[in-house]
């Protein structure tokens, strides 16, 4: 009889362990120590519950690309000074400024400021070491960056690899909150640059729209940051981002003439629509004020 019970215990343990990672429709919130996901009760078309949610925000590289396409001019005095690096000691300071300097590096290189880019590259290398990212993950890509700094296309690919290696390493080592901080730092730096370059008396429409369109990215950024409520440094910045959101919520973006064109041969879908952005220079000034404040906290 005793042995029969032991049988049942083993079978039960076996079944629990085998199926425990396949629970569906759970109401519990899983800890976000592996990738930036949460378990949610969100319904899709009233049918299935979403098990994992991810939020992507334009990376520092993509933000720099957006700025350069919008015609933002390069003003080195706006970028974070390299000598500020010595102030960054905690993981949070390092991660946030990895994002900031990453945006500066990407922007400098996209604007063909090679010497500036090399300067920011050395800062990124030092921060990478300070964050404890192993040399085989960080060093290799940074060495490749040095060797290819003159070749713009190679540099962009290598910067992308660097971000991925860093993001991947941090998430795989229970530091997904630090990975989120990198994204936050880079995004804030890009908005700061754009709002400080725009001529408030005669604003360039492309730059104005570029700033306004970040309304969507901000929402994703806030959702991303909200997953790390135990991080006190992110908790300090969260209310400031919500403050920024109150301004962005007033910016209207309307769409008309929506059309979806599928090209099966080229495996491409074009989403056509006419966008109307209603934004005032006063709103941009407010965004500039709040962003400058957030950036000041990050880089001080």
């Amino acid at each position: 009889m005793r042995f029969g019970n032991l049988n049942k215990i083993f079978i039960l343990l076996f079944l629990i362990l085998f199926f425990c990672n396949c629970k569906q429709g759970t109401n519990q919130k899983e800890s976000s120590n592996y990738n930036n996901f949460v378990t949610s009760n969100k319904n899709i078309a009233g049918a299935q519950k979403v098990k994992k949610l991810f939020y992507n925000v334009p990376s520092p590289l993509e933000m720099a690309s957006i700025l350069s396409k919008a015609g933002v001019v390069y003003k080195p005095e706006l970028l974070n000074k390299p000598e500020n690096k010595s102030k960054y000691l905690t993981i949070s300071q390092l991660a946030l400024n990895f994002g900031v300097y990453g945006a500066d590096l990407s922007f400098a290189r996209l604007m063909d400021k090679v010497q500036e880019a090399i300067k920011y590259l050395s800062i990124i290398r030092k921060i990478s070491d300070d964050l404890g990212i192993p040399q085989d993950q960080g060093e290799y890509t940074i060495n490749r960056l040095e060797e290819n700094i003159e070749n713009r296309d190679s540099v962009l690919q290598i910067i992308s690899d660097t971000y991925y290696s860093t993001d991947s390493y941090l998430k795989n080592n229970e530091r997904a909150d630090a990975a989120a901080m990198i994204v936050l730092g880079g995004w804030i730096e890009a908005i700061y640059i754009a709002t400080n370059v725009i001529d408030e008396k005669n604003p360039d429409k492309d730059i104005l729209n570029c700033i306004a369109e970040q309304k969507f990215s901000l929402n994703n950024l806030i959702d991303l940051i909200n997953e790390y409520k135990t991080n006190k440094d992110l908790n300090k910045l969260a209310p400031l981002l919500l403050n920024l959101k109150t301004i962005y919520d007033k910016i209207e973006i309307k769409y008309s003439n929506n059309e979806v064109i599928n090209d099966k041969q080229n495996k491409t879908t074009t989403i056509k629509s006419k966008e109307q952005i209603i934004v005032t220079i006063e709103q941009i000034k407010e965004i500039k004020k709040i962003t400058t404040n957030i950036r000041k906290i990050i880089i001080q």
Partner: protein
Amino acid sequence: MKINVCINYFLIFCFTLLFINNSYSQCKNFAKNSCLSNLKPFIFNGQLNNAILCEGDVAELSLTFIGNQSYRIFVCYQEPLKNVEFTLLDNDNNPIFSNKENNYINYWDFVSTSTQQLTVEVKVPKEKSINDMTQTGCVSILVGFLK
């Protein structure tokens, strides 16, 4: 005899633990080893969206497409998962694209003439398996952009 049975059960228990731990470890490097190269010439946005999903599970990725910039969505997954579906939804949850209508191809390129908030919904279908076991595997959603 009874001791042998105990040992057998113990070994099964240990192998199961090993299997589960191995699944998580494999997922960690899955995107890098098996998927990233498929994004080229698009530049990876650098953000890891990996998860272990079972049949019937749904994952969502919320992102912004900047106007007039080309993107590639690549959904990479491990065997024994099959025919993983992905759908691109607009801000009102209207489907823009589904790979179910395109032979379950695991990537597609997009360009939007205006900046839009979109969602990539990934669903692992329930397949009939011989031994009726729920299949599980790593799923990675990768996003690349063209500069």
